[in-house]
């Protein structure tokens, strides 16, 4: 998908530069200096007053379309904007919980209400850990 998006983008850029260069070359022709007939549909203030061949206009429009498609295709996936979807992702996948830097990531932001670092029972935790080590050593021996 990413490769196709970059191919589309590159094609769009090539067509766009070709169209721009053609328009420049066309402006150098002696026939380009003849004032065009004013448009029948557009009001005076919007009339660009140039005579550009239709194929250059079409190529410009086509390249802009290609670039739009390419940019949309190459953009990263959408992030959840609904609370329950975002929260579900945190519960469900380890990847979403990963701490990337200080204050970024880390899973359920309300876990602190149940872990409660301020009330950490350090003696209980130490005992739990030494029990775990002993149990581990015991299971290895047996």
């Amino acid at each position, binding site marked *: 998908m990413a490769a196709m998006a970059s191919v589309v983008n590159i094609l769009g850029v090539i067509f766009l530069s070709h169209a721009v260069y053609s328009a420049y070359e066309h402006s150098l022709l002696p026939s380009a200096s003849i004032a065009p007939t004013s448009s029948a549909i557009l009001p005076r203030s919007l009339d660009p007053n140039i005579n550009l061949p239709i194929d250059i206009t079409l190529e410009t429009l086509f390249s802009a379309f290609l670039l739009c498609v390419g940019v949309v295709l190459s953009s990263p996936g959408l992030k959840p904007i609904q609370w329950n979807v975002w929260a579900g992702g945190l519960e469900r*996948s380890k990847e979403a919980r990963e701490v990337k830097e200080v204050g970024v990531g880390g899973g359920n932001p309300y876990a602190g209400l149940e872990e409660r670092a301020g009330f950490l029972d350090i003696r209980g935790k130490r005992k739990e850990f030494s029990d775990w080590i002993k149990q581990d050593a015991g299971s290895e021996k047996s």
Partner: protein
Amino acid sequence: MSTTLLLQPPTTSTPQTTLALAQQAAPFFAAQSTWLSALPYPLNLLINTESQEKWVTHENLFLACLRTGDTASASRALEALTARFGKTNERVLVLWGLYQEATASNQAELEEVMKSYDEILREDPTVFGIRKRRAALLKSVGKPTEAIGDLIKLLDASPTDAEAWAELADLYVAQGAYEQAVYCLEEVLLVTANAWNMHARLGEVLFLSASKTEAAAGERLKTLSESMRRFCRSVELCEGYLRGYYGLKITTDRLLETLEGVRKPQTASADPVTGELAPPSLEAVKKLNQLATAKLAEIVRRGSAGEKGWDGYSPAELSAARDLLDRDTQKIQR
């Protein structure tokens, strides 16, 4: 990988991860003291070794080493933190308290620690970190009623401290005072209304109180339906919340039994005088039960298979959910 491990808060970790973290202490400290930081005064100003990561890592390593009993590394981290932030910094004070509590070997030394807390609080009663430590120490030495008294005083001064309300709720639950615990958890939810785990916790406490009371069937029905609504809210806030669906399934199972026992037809509307909601209808409970069963089955299936994006559930919770579902199928087969 190693840096993210160092930044992980150590309170949530299992003994395995704590051990892995504590083993990183020696290489980390070795990397901290290079010849660059030992340069004489004007030159060392040119080198900036300050970063948030550095001090978060120091704190995490301190807590992990304290848990594993590696007091030498812990005191090294603590000294670095003290040298940087000063001895009167509130957070450093708390860490010193933790260090002393952990290294106290007998009752007399613990009382010394308690006296030092009192000393700090006499000078400045607004050091909330130390007030919390004092309550935690009281709980840890087996004086829960005094810890409750301490917490109530703390909450009088700072009623929006959700962590303290949650701690108080847990103390009340341990004492069997479910009504007070429910009140405390409701206070927590006033501060953090979107905390899905606290909604589930409140549902659990309500369920406990419903299973315990010898009260009339009406009272029990009311508590059970309240509990069911709390679990519903928690899964509404977090889709795929195993704990929420587990609770929802258990409460609806119990409610179905209770509702089938009740003879009189349910009044559909809420009580206008007290503002209490009527118990849910039998069909609604049945539907919720089916939904919870289906969701649990899906979580167990995809979670145990370890599908991509479904690997975050703890194995213990998964196996508990599987047991619950198995019990259900056995009942049907019988």
